[in-house]
């Protein structure tokens, strides 16, 4: 087989660009349906079917129908991007088959933007700096040519033909890139170490075991732009002289796994991955390993044991993985987002990358925003932006006019940031000082209906379930922590419980073996630190201000607050509420099943 050359890469790139340019005598318009997991889960495939039907039914030969990954604004899916000659690109949101038919008629046939379905000019997109996400929603992740059209595999060609390993490491060092999995270890340093050990074979591993509940950055990147990650891995492979790479991806992400496999196959077929890449004699083969559902496998040593077909239990470091990783061989493991950053750093230079950010945290960071906010989705922001700006400008503030209570960062290893610390800039060190962590980038926003004690219990329960059981503080300590939190939620809290939780939590942090145990008490410690009064209320007053903990709710209507609207009466499945027009409602406690339907229905916090 003839090797794929740089000329062919550029020819493919130019052809793909030409193909995607709208023109009078070709495709005059393009309907791009976003089909990431969030899109599909909201009905994007039905939208795609409707578009195909209409195009066929009306023989619309000059409209191209394309699919791409997530566009970033998950809460407004299904979504399309409409491109047509003579019109600016428009994103249409919250679609259903009727709406898309109308859009085809008006936007594509009459050349008129359908304002009422269009996404306006919102800060959600304006404040972002897409680097890792630069191709999101714009390319077809299942077509390598689309990636090549965006200068894909140019960086790999450059490192294979024009750069020494030292030069690559120097460029990455200049970029200031730190591990995006959460710990923030300098990437260049890790690669340097990986290169230093001269035992072969060496391995490159991409950690796609995104286990933090509330985090979906890696899924989205893998689904929307898989080649960027593969190219980053190949560049790392050249740097450390490795020829085998593994992507360990959660089995809960079937679409990401499918698209990665397609991408690897296409890359090998073309000759930009696999054997004799670009005819340079450099080989790099890749495999996708689906995880088997164990959170702890996101820890690097556990992940490697899992790849070896063993129980994923972390081991004591040193030796670090760069010295003795997979099968005891030198191994460089990085997160999805870290690898996805690499090709652009090589092409545009480390200095370009580090032009954004703070002193110690350079470039951009991808966050997944979820919870009680208006704009849920995936965002990429420059390091140093304030949390407040993320919550109130980009995420559009709290939904339904409620009040912000806390931002949860870093999942079960992270913590809660209260309103008073919202001006904290997003960088590794500043976030850690608040008791939270940068983490992998999952941010869940809580409004006043989230009980902080219940939230602490939720995460502790998660860690109890996911503890591998190897060391005592984590295995047993977390269970004791959980039992105490359960007592609090059930109204059985006693004086001294807060100190007990704090003490035990700190001991677990100090004495646990791996990252999971060392960080598992963080959610408890940070809620006590910032929301101590809620713990005190649960213990002393047997009161839950968020009306979450059923055992602490009296189920009594506060007559002064009751607007006599009858919503609670209609919502009650047990027939326990008596109400008549212009009369406050009354709850019959003998019939009440404490299901909280009335509390959810009441818009005025009139039930306590």
């Amino acid at each position, binding site marked *: 087989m003839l090797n794929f050359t740089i000329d062919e890469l550029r020819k493919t790139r130019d052809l793909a660009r030409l193909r995607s340019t709208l023109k009078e005598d070709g495709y005059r318009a393009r309907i791009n349906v976003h089909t990431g*997991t*969030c899109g*599909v*889960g*909201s009905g994007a495939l039905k939208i795609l079917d409707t578009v195909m039907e209409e195009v066929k039914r009306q023989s619309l030969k000059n409209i191209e129908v394309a699919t791409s990954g997530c566009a970033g*604004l*998950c*809460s407004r*899916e299904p979504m399309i991007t409409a491109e047509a000659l003579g019109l600016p690109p428009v994103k249409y949101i919250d679609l259903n088959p009727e709406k898309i038919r109308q859009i085809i008629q008006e936007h594509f046939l009459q050349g008129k933007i359908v304002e009422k379905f269009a996404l306006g000019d919102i800060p959600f997109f304006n404040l972002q700096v897409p680097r890792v996400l630069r191709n999101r929603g714009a390319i077809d992740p299942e077509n390598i040519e689309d990636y090549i059209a965006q200068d894909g595999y140019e960086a790999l060609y450059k490192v294979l033909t024009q750069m020494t390993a030292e030069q690559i490491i120097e460029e990455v060092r200049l970029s200031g890139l730190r591990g995006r999995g959460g710990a923030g270890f300098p990437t260049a340093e890790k690669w340097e170490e990986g290169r230093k050990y001269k035992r072969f074979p060496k391995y490159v591993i991409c950690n796609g075991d*995104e*286990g*933090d*509940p*509330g*985090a*979906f950055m890696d*899924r989205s990147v893998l689904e929307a732009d898989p080649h960027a990650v593969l190219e980053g891995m190949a560049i790392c492979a050249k740097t450390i002289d490795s020829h085998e790479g593994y992507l360990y991806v*959660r*089995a*809960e*992400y*079937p679409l990401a796994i499918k698209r990665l496999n397609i991408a690897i196959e296409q890359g090998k077929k073309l000759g930009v991955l696999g054997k004799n890449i670009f005819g340079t004699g450099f080989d790099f083969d890749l495999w996708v*390993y*689906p995880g*088997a*559902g*164990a*959170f702890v496998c996101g820890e690097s040593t556990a992940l490697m044991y*899992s*790849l*070896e*077909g*063993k*129980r*994923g*239990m972390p081991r004591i470091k040193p030796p670090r993985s760069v010295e003795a990783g997979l*099968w005891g061989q030198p191994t460089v493991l990085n997160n999805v987002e870290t690898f996805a950053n690499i090709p652009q750093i090589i092409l545009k230079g480390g200095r370009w990358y580090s032009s954004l950010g703070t002193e110690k945290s350079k470039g951009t960071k991808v966050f*997944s925003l*979820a*919870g*009680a906010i208006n704009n*849920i*989705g*995936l965002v990429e922001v420059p390091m140093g932006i304030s949390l407040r700006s993320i919550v109130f400008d980009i995420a559009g503030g709290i939904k339904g006019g409620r009040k912000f209570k806390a931002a*949860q960062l870093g*999942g079960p290893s992270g913590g809660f940031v209260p309103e008073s610390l919202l001006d904290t800039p997003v960088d590794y060190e500043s976030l850690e000082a608040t008791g939270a962590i940068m983490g992998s980038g*999952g941010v*869940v926003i*809580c409004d006043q209906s*989230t009980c902080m004690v219940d*939230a602490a219990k*939720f*995460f502790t329960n*998660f860690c109890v*379930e*996911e503890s*591998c059981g190897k060391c005592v503080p984590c295995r047993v300590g977390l269970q004791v922590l959980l039992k105490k939190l359960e007592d609090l939620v059930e109204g059985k809290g006693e004086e001294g419980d807060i100190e007990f939780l704090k003490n035990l939590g700190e001991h677990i942090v100090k004495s646990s073996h791996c990252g999971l145990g060392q960080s598992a008490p963080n959610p408890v410690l940070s809620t006590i630190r910032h929301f101590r009064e809620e713990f005190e209320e649960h213990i002393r007053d047997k009161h839950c201000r968020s009306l979450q903990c059923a055992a602490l709710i009296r189920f009594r209507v506060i007559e002064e607050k009751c607007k006599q609207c009858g919503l609670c009466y209609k919502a009650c499945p047990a027939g326990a509420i008596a109400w008549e027009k212009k009369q406050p409602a009354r709850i019959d406690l003998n019939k009440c099943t404490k299901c909280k339907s009335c509390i959810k229905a009441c818009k005025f916090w009139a039930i306590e």
Partner: protein
Amino acid sequence: MGTDSPAESKLDLAQIEQICREHEGRKGDLLIVMQKIQALCGYAPQAALPVVSRYLGTTSSEIYGVLTFYNRFHLSPRGKHTIRACRGTACHFKGSLEILEKMREHLQMGPKQDTTDNALFSIEEVACLGACGIAPVIMVDEEVFGKLEPETAVEIVARYEEAEKGKEG
């Protein structure tokens, strides 16, 4: 779980052997081999362990250790459809527990039961499906459903039930 389940007698040991043969001598492929076997049988049957052990060179106890470590492996037959209810943070704050309970109630499942008596459905709680943007979420087999209420989740389960009834009739 009943050992008299028809699934156990239907096991295709020849196919299990075929899977193992492709990975002969490669201990490290244990997870992949067991995932393939589970895809074939719907669960990880005990009868497969000696076969896997023979081909891969791992002891049965090691295999058992691995199977019980990872959430995705099941030692008893599963329902035809797997419902994965997301219990991640975003879903939790948006009422995923209630959705889970309502689905279990609809399927008449006891507190510790994870598979329905008619073996049509298994329910699993998963840490996070990573579709927080459309929370609360469930996944039926490989299909994701989002922005759910307890009622709509039950409707989705009911649709699968209907489809199964259609197949019988």
